[in-house]
């Protein structure tokens, strides 16, 4: 099934989506990958507030190439989600809405997706030029010193993703 939805998704929309559904997302998402996750996790461990309010929001595991003049962003495809698995259950517990990346997740993450009725989408790995066309605005909102690994707030329009782990915590990948 193919759907167009506003992101962040409502709880009902998340629970209605099933593995294999094609979704075009329009709205706001945040980027964070390895280094930003490590910092956010350290923040949580110290009992400090996160630099962004993750409640209900979607994180896209992505570090873009630099934008040429006149463009909002450079190449912008997903990175391998598995490297964030160590941090993901905690973020879901704190209210993270969902994730966009590529590749398999650990049973711990899948279980956390099920318990929190969250969702995990994949974007097509290695299609960074194509995907950049669906990003209309990009702004660094935290950890600027991390360069490509900074947290960015993105405005997306018809950003193409596929449901690879739905709210039941089962994975599409064999």
């Amino acid at each position: 099934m193919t759907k167009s939805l506003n992101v962040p998704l409502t709880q009902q929309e998340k629970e209605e989506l099933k593995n294999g559904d094609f979704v075009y997302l329009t709205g706001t998402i945040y980027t964070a990958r390895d280094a930003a996750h490590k910092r956010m996790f350290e923040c949580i461990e110290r009992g400090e507030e996160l630099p962004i309010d993750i409640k209900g929001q979607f994180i896209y595991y992505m570090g873009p190439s630099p934008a040429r003049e006149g463009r909002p962003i450079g190449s912008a495809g997903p990175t391998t989600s598995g490297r964030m698995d160590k941090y993901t259950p905690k973020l879901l517990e704190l209210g993270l809405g969902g994730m966009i990346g590529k590749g398999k997740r650990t049973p711990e993450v899948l279980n956390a997706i099920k318990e929190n009725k969250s969702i995990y989408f994949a974007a097509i790995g290695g299609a960074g030029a194509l995907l950049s066309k669906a990003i209309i605005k990009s702004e660094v909102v935290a950890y600027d010193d991390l360069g490509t690994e900074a947290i960015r707030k993105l405005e997306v329009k018809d950003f193409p993703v596929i449901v690879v782990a739905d709210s039941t915590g089962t994975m599409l990948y064999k």
Partner: protein
Amino acid sequence: MRDINVSKVTETVKEMCIEINHVLSPDMAAALDKAATNEKSELGKQVLGQLEENIKIAKADMIPICQDTGMAVIFVEVGQDVHFNCDGAASLEDAINEGVRQGYVEGYLRKSVVDDPIIRNNTKDNTPAVIHYSIVPGDKVKLTLAPKGFGSENMSRVFMLKPADGIEGVKNAILTAVKDAGPNACPPMVVGVGIGGTFEKCALMAKHALTREVGKHSDIPYVKELEEEMLDKINALGIGPAGLGGSTTALAVNVETYPTHIAGLPVGINICCHVNRHISREL
């Protein structure tokens, strides 16, 4: 003795970095095209169609094919009758790294290199490169650049097999690595394999095998057969484009071999995604 100014090396490396991150080599583009025609799964066809569209956009709008513009791996074949003129300034190594720096900074490529594997501060110019030198006959210099993305690099393996494991052991090792890589390595992949040598030699051969033109086979008859058989077996795994199922999991299996020790059978498997970038220039 032929004199080559290292500034020529810098310029060439810079140009190669920018070109290969935006324009996929003709062999890879042709392989993807063929795969899109032959893919059996509808979803797989759709993914391959998106990848072809991605390549067109990358070239037309000068947006890197993939945001992971890689760590620059460079094979430098130096003719033994070449003398590098450094103008008293940079060494050959510095000249190569300067080319990478200029290419990645001026070409809007992502800076993905950290200065230390544990401390991890980004060097902000994608240097240093990983450079492999070899001395060859003649008075030319051949530079081959293969920027390597780490989604697939992370799924690469070295197996120290026993001689008794033989060719079946090698086949199992390749299938194990590809199965474990699955969707993480951004299939359809190109699989580089090095058989023989020592621990480091097999890994280096596997890396070098990725720079071979896709569609070209080894000159050694049994190795060519192995390449063809493994490509069929990998594609029968059903992992498919983007790992979403289908008959295209790999575009090529390239194997290199080297003599080895009586006690060993090292096998290196370097997995590359569908953005298998390789470009060569001769000076």
